[in-house]
């Protein structure tokens, strides 16, 4: 007698298999991927009378014919990992179709237990299945369950143990049905391999199913039809369907990013406070810089996405579990198909406008591998929220107010069009002879079960932290090192220290001088005084600026009167930061890359900032602040906008945005892409592919634009 039993759950999609899995294993689950593919592998443990039973939840499939990753994975698992018992979960309200897989599984010659699930739904629809008769006809044990209420779930374990202990015990059968694949073997031409033979086998299977159903299923014709007809009449309506879908997605989107912004702010603030505390507690040095900028920044960068991911997956799980997602897919399929994507690709794409990382994770819902990879590949082209600060800095810096909206809209549109083009090219290059036929099941609508939805959401969140998190963390430490080392030499540091010391020594004199200057300039500028409390950063940035105005904005953050001494000290700090970055590896790489950057109209300073943007897009703005030594900078920083305006043309400004839109997906995207695509190859292909496209396109725009 073996002590540990291994069972596999198999069944059609929407048969309630995941619910049964949850009831069997509780929260003790692990999620992994089947080797080489992105099909999720859920594994858990159940206990029955002291016996430990390991349960693998196979992906939902209609057959084992290897037409999709899911089917291949399920077939290979049954063949290679030889579970002691296969538990086939069958939707009792949809027996005829579900029994096809049952017959296919029977032909695998593994001990089989059939679980008639959702018998309550079946009864409501007037379908009565005689389990005892079914067991006799099929020749395997048949149990009845109502998965979402846990009815009959313990009995599954008891039966599994019984079957595992006596795998050869015969089940009482009335007729030993001929194996349908025998029909295939009788094919004269090939002995079971050809198309004709497969069709013969399928016809035999359905004949057998018809015979079994005739004996075991009683259907009450007067029973009320399911409500799906009426709901579908509205949700898949030819005119109403799309607006309803867009509204639903808008809701998901809003929920993800508005509701998510609170915990994100807490996480941000928490890590900020931690950094401040370390700042005070540690003495200056490399170790402190590593902990604050490398470690705390890195871990924070990972966790800050977590609220978005959790909320998004909760929403998507609910949409999927309720049955709506299949309807949405069929509505959007028409447009997505034109560029070789699937109807469901529209969901990750929309999510991608918020953040590429959860978008790529959402691409899981696509079952065709090619469609999933193409969707993930083009996702960074849907301009994410982190790129917005770059636009918010550059657009007002270079373009007049009446152009700003148009430019922003244009950038987003360029991204979408480019995504369509890239997807289409991938479609042409990678497609085999025929497109996957569009056929999906529209499951009956039902209320999502919190258990399934919740457990899956939490598991995915944890997986993100564990797998992607470690990579993001490693890259962020690496980028920290690139921008920090080699340090400034002692001589330069001493020079800056001396400058600071001098300013502090002459503090009183500087203050007096500044006060005198201020009095003078106030007098002269009194009539043309701009509003002091310009709240709108846009109007502030666009206003014709005097020097005094710039100082005002800079002082805005502390909301104190400008202290000329602090200003002077900050200027020295900024100059030191600039010198350090220039000397660092990032600065050197930026310089080394200059010949590559020139055709796009970029100099080494932009190049260095772009290296920072590899970590996260929004870092570009802060890095630009450092290279131009304007000190701490964000997108509302007027001195930085001023400096950029003085140094670059609007064409270069546009080119920067174009390049940031397309090139170098951020490290979180890189890490998640590697994980979700199942190989580093895809992450590298995406990173370098998009960067190459960005280079070519930006160069074209710059070179053509320059001639006007």
């Amino acid at each position, binding site marked *: 007698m073996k002590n540990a039993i291994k069972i596999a759950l198999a069944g059609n999609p929407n048969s309630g298999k995941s619910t049964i899995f949850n009831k069997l294993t509780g929260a003790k689950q692990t999620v992994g991927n089947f080797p080489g593919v992105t099909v999720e592998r859920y594994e858990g443990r159940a206990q029955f009378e002291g016996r430990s039973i390991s349960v693998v939840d196979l992906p939902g499939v209609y057959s084992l014919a290897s037409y999709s990753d899911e089917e291949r994975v399920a077939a290979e698992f049954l063949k290679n990992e030889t579970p002691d018992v296969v538990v086939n979960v069958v939707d009792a309200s*949809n027996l005829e179709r579900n029994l096809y897989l049952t017959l296919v599984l029977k032909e695998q010659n593994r001990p089989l237990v059939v679980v008639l699930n959702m018998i309550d739904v079946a009864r409501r629809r007037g379908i009565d299945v005689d389990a005892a008769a079914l067991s006799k006809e099929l020749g395997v044990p048949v149990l009845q369950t109502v998965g979402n209420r846990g009815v009959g779930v313990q009995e599954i374990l008891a039966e599994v143990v019984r079957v595992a202990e006596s795998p050869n015990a015969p089940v009482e059968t009335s007729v030993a049905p001929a194996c349908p694949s025998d029909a295939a073997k009788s094919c004269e031409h090939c002995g079971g391999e050809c198309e004709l033979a497969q069709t013969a086998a399928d016809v035999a299977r359905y004949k057998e199913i018809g015979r079994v159903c005739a004996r075991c299923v009683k259907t009450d014709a007067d029973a009320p039809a399911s409500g799906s007809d009426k709901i579908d009449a509205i949700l898949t309506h030819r005119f109403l369907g799309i607006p309803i879908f867009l509204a639903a997605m808008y809701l998901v989107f809003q929920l993800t990013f508005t509701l998510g912004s609170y915990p994100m702010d807490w996480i941000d603030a928490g890590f900020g406070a931690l950094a401040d505390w370390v700042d005070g507690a540690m003495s200056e040095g490399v170790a402190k810089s590593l902990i604050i900028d490398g470690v705390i920044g890195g871990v924070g960068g990972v966790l800050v996405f977590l609220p978005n991911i959790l909320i998004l997956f909760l929403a998507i799980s609910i949409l999927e579990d309720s049955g709506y997602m299949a309807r949405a897919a*069929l509505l959007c399929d028409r447009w997505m198909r034109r560029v070789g994507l699937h109807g469901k690709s529209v969901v990750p794409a929309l999510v991608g406008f918020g953040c590429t990382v959860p978008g790529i994770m959402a691409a899981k819902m696509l079952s065709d591998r090619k469609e999933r990879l193409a969707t993930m590949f083009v996702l960074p082209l849907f301009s994410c929220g982190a790129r917005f600060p770059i636009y918010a800095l550059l657009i007002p810096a270079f373009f007049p107010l009446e152009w700003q909206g148009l430019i922003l809209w244009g950038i987003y549109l360029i991204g979408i069009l480019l995504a369509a083009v890239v997807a289409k090219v991938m479609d042409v290059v990678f497609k085999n002879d025929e497109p996957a036929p569009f056929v999906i099941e529209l499951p009956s609508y039902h209320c999502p079960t919190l258990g399934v939805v919740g457990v899956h959401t939490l598991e995915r969140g944890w997986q993100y932290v564990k797998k992607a998190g470690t990579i993001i963390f490693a890259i962020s430490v690496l980028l920290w090192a690139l921008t920090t080392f080699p340090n400034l030499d002692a001589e330069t540091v001493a020079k800056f220290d001396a400058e600071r010391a001098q300013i502090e020594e002459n503090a009183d004199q500087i203050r007096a001088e500044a006060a005198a200057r201020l009095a003078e300039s106030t007098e002269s500028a009194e009539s043309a005084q701009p509003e002091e409390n310009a709240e709108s950063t846009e109007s502030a940035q666009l206003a014709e600026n005097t020097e005094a105005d710039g100082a005002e904005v800079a002082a805005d953050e502390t909301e104190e009167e400008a202290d000329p001494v602090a200003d002077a000290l900050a200027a020295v700090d900024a100059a030191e930061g600039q010198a350090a970055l220039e000397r660092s590896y990032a600065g050197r790489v930026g310089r080394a890359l200059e010949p590559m950057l020139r055709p796009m109209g970029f100099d080494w300073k932009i190049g260095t900032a772009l290296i920072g943007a590899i970590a996260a897009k929004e870092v570009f703005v802060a890095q630009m602040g450092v290279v131009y030594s304007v000190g701490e900078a964000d997108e509302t920083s007027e001195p930085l906008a001023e400096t950029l305006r003085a140094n670059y043309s609007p064409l270069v400004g546009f080119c920067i945005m174009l390049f940031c839109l397309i090139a170098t997906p951020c490290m979180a995207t890189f890490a998640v892409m590697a994980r979700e695509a199942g190989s580093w190859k895809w992450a590298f292909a995406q990173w370098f592919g998009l960067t190459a496209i960005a280079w070519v396109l930006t160069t074209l725009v710059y070179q053509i634009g320059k001639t006007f």
Partner: protein
Amino acid sequence: MTLADALKGQKVTIVSMDLTELGVNRLTALGLTPGVRVRVVDNSLKDTSIIECRGSRLALGRGLARFIVVK
């Protein structure tokens, strides 16, 4: 007549499926075989037919429905 021409609410029987092996096998696993009765739930969408067959509801692209002969 093909499935793409059938009207909403009509009940038809599949005669044959002039599709590639991949297409036929996909449809077979979902319950569509010659001889089976199919109820057309909605055919008004531009590129998709919604049908009911063997107790489950399916959405088929026009590219498939046009090649399924029914009576």
